[in-house]
C-alpha cells in the first residue's frame, strides 16, 4: 500500500481524528527518524570486498529480479562484521575468505572475482556441500559458525531484508490495510 492509499484509507475510516496535529504526509515516516542510524565503520579490505561481492552475487544472482549486489549485500555484510559479530567471529570470517581465492586459483589460476561463472559456482557448491555434510552429521552449530556458513547466511539475510527484494521479488505489503486469509498466490517462475 503506497503512502497516498494509506492516507485515503485512514480518512475513510475516520481514524485520522486520533492523529490530529500530525501532517498527513508524516504518517508513514513516523518512527523512522527515531530509528535512523549513522554510518558504520568498515571492516573489509578491498580484496576481501571483491571476493565477498562476487560470492554473494553468485549465491543470489541478478536475473529478471535483483541480485545480491543490487540489494546492497556486501555493504550489509561489512556493517554486520563491524558492529554485530564479535572479534573471534570476525577473525574467523576474515581468515576464511581467502580460501575462495585459493580454491579458484587451484581450478583456473585466477582469483575468485576474476574466475568464469562456472568456476565460481563450482567453488561455492563444494563449500556448500561441506556445510550440508556437517549438518547431516549433526554438527549444525559448526556449520553455522563456519566462515562460509556465515557468508551465505548473511547474504540471504541481507538480501531478503533489502528494499529491492521486498518490493519486487516477495511482493511484501508493508501497509496492506486489511487481512485477507485466502488471497491468490502464484509462486515465482
Amino acid at each position, binding site marked *: 500500500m503506497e503512502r497516498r492509499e494509506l492516507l485515503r484509507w485512514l480518512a475513510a475510516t475516520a*481514524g485520522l481524528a486520533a492523529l490530529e496535529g*500530525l501532517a498527513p504526509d508524516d504518517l508513514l515516516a513516523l518512527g*523512522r527518524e527515531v530509528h535512523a542510524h549513522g554510518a558504520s565503520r568498515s571492516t573489509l579490505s578491498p580484496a576481501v570486498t571483491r571476493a565477498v561481492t562476487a560470492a554473494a552475487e553468485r549465491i543470489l544472482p541478478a536475473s529478471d529480479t535483483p541480485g545480491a549486489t543490487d540489494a546492497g549485500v556486501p555493504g550489509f555484510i561489512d556493517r554486520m562484521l563491524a558492529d554485530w559479530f564479535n572479534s573471534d567471529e570476525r577473525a574467523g570470517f576474515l581468515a576464511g575468505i581467502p580460501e575462495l581465492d585459493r580454491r579458484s586459483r587451484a581450478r583456473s589460476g585466477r582469483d575468485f572475482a576474476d574466475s568464469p561463472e562456472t568456476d565460481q559456482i563450482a567453488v561455492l557448491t563444494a563449500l556448500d556441500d561441506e556445510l550440508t555434510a556437517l549438518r547431516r552429521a549433526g554438527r549444525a552449530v559448526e556449520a553455522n559458525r563456519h566462515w562460509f556458513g556465515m557468508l551465505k547466511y548473511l547474504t540471504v539475510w541481507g538480501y531478503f*531484508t533489502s528494499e529491492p527484494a521486498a518490493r519486487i521479488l516477495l511482493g511484501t505489503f508493508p501497509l496492506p490495510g486489511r487481512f485477507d*486469509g485466502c488471497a491468490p498466490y502464484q509462486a*515465482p517462475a
Partner: protein
Amino acid sequence: MLIQNTNPDYDAIVVGSGMTGGWAAKELTELGLRTLVLEAGRPISPEKDAAEHVQPWEMRFRGMGDRRHVESRQRMQRNSVSFDELSHRYWTDDVDNPYTTPADKPFHWFRARQEGGKSLIWGRQVYRWSDLDFEANQRDSIAVDWPIRYRDLAPWYDRVERFIGVSGRAEGLAHLPDGPFLPPMDFSCVEEHVRERIAARFGGERLMTIGRVAVLTEALNGRAPCHYCGPCHRGCITRSYFSSVNATLPAARATGRLTLRPFSIVRSLVLDPRSNRVSGVQVIDAQTRAERTYTARVVFLCASAIESARILLNSRSAKFPDGLANASGQVGRNIMDHIKWGGASGEMEGWSDKRTVGARPNGIYVPRFRNVGSKHPDFIRGYGFQGGANRAGWQGSARAPGIGLDFKRRLSTLGPWSMTFGGFGEMLPREENRATVHPTRVDAWGIPVLHIDCSWGPNELALYRDMNVTAAELLEAAGARNIRPDARGPSTPGNTNHEMGTARMGRDPRTSVLNQWNQAWDIPNLFLTDGACMTSSANQNPSLTYMALTARACHHAVAELKRGAL
C-alpha cells in the same frame, strides 16, 4: 515521623501507568479524584515512539537485533517472545534492575518501566473467566477460595471490553463467556478447514474459534481500526490495539485531574500506625536520585504483580515487620505463571495457490476442554490453545543447501502451509513459590532486590504433557501430515509473562492479603489490583481480568472515600 494527612497532595496516588495503573487513573479521575500516577520510567507518546512501520532495511541490524547492547544489558529480558530490535527499548535494563533465583530454578521476570508498562508489549489476547475458574480452589480444596464469583465481575468485564474494544466471535460457551465484541478477524482458508474438521471430529467438546483480541476492527472513541501492518509491540500510531498509552491515560488526561510523573520510582509506602492508613508514597527520582514523599487519601498499587509485592515487602514498620499488609505472610508467595511450550504443528497439504495478505495481530483459540465435563485422571484444571496456520517464508530456508538462481527462486517461494497449536496451562498456587527480599543486593537506586524461587509442580507438568497429546489429536483430525509435538520442554517459569498471585485476595485476613474489593485487610486506603491480587491463575490470558478488577475496586474505593470510611 508522623505525616499529617489533613491536606494531602492528591486525592489518589496510583503506582504504575500500565495495564491496571492506566485503568485506575481513568476511573479515579473520571469519578472526580485528583490523581497522581507515579511511573518509574520515561514518558511515551505514539507520535514520537511508534516504530511499527519501520521496514527491515531501515533497521540498523536488519532485525538481527543490537546484539552487543542486548548481551551486556538485557540478557534476561531478551527471552520475552516479543523482544526484538525495535521493541527492546520497552523492557528494562537487567544490570540496573537485577534479581536472583536459585541456580536450579530459573525464572524469567520481565519488566517494562516506561509509561504504558507492559500494556505496550502484551499479546492482546483477552478471555473472560467463569465460575469454573472462580470456584476452582474451593472445589479442589487448594489454597484459599476467591472472595468473588463471576457475577461480581461480569458488569466490569462488560465495561472494560466496551472501552478497550475487543474483536471476537461469540461461541456461547459457559466456561468462556462472550462479551460485547467488535467484528471478529478472519480465519485463513486453512484455519477455516481446521475449524470444520475439529467440529466434525469432536462435536462440541473441542472447538476452534478466532482469538479474542484487544485490537479494533471498527473505529472506537477516536482510535482507528487495525491496518494489519503487523508488529503491535513496536508501536501503533493509529492507537488500534489497546494500551494505557493508547486509551486509558488519554481518557484520564481529558478530565483535567491527572498528573503523571515519569522517572518516579516507588521505594516504599509509608504507614501511619495510629490510623492504619498509608499516609505517603516514597519516591526516588530515577534520573536525579532526589527523594520525596507524596501524600494522598487513597493509594492504588498497580506496579505489576511481583513489583507490587516487592514494594510491600520493602515497606516494613514496627506494625508490619514482614512488609506492609503482610500479617498473613502471603505477600510474595503463591507465584503463578502459565506453563507453555506444549503443543504440536503439522503440514497441511494443499492450498498452494493461496496465501494471506496482511499481518493479522491475532491467532486462533481453542478454549479449555479438559476437566470441564469429565474429570481427567492425571491432572486438575486445564489449558487453552493458541496458534494458527501460515506458510513458511525465506527465514525457514535460510540455512538450506543450494546457491544460484534456483536457490533464489526456492527462497522466494512460500513453503507449504503448516498449522500449529500452542498451549497455555493453569498453574496451581503453592506457598513455597515465593519472592523474598534479597539480604544484601540492591538495584541501581539502592532499593533491595528480590530473590525469586519458583518452579512447576506435578500438576502443571502432567497438564503440559497432555498438551502435546491433544494438539496432535487436533492436527490429526484436520488431516495434517508430519505432525511434530513441541520438543522444547516446558517453558521457563515467568516466560509467559502472566506472573501473578503474590498478594492474593481471599475471605480471611489470616490467609490472604486483600479482601473482595482488592483492599488490603488491615489498611483501608490501600488497594492493589494488578496480577498480584490473583488467588488462582486459570489458563486464560489474565490482563482483561486485572482490568475488570481494577475498575470495580476503583468504584468501591471512591464510594468508601465519599462515605468517609477511608
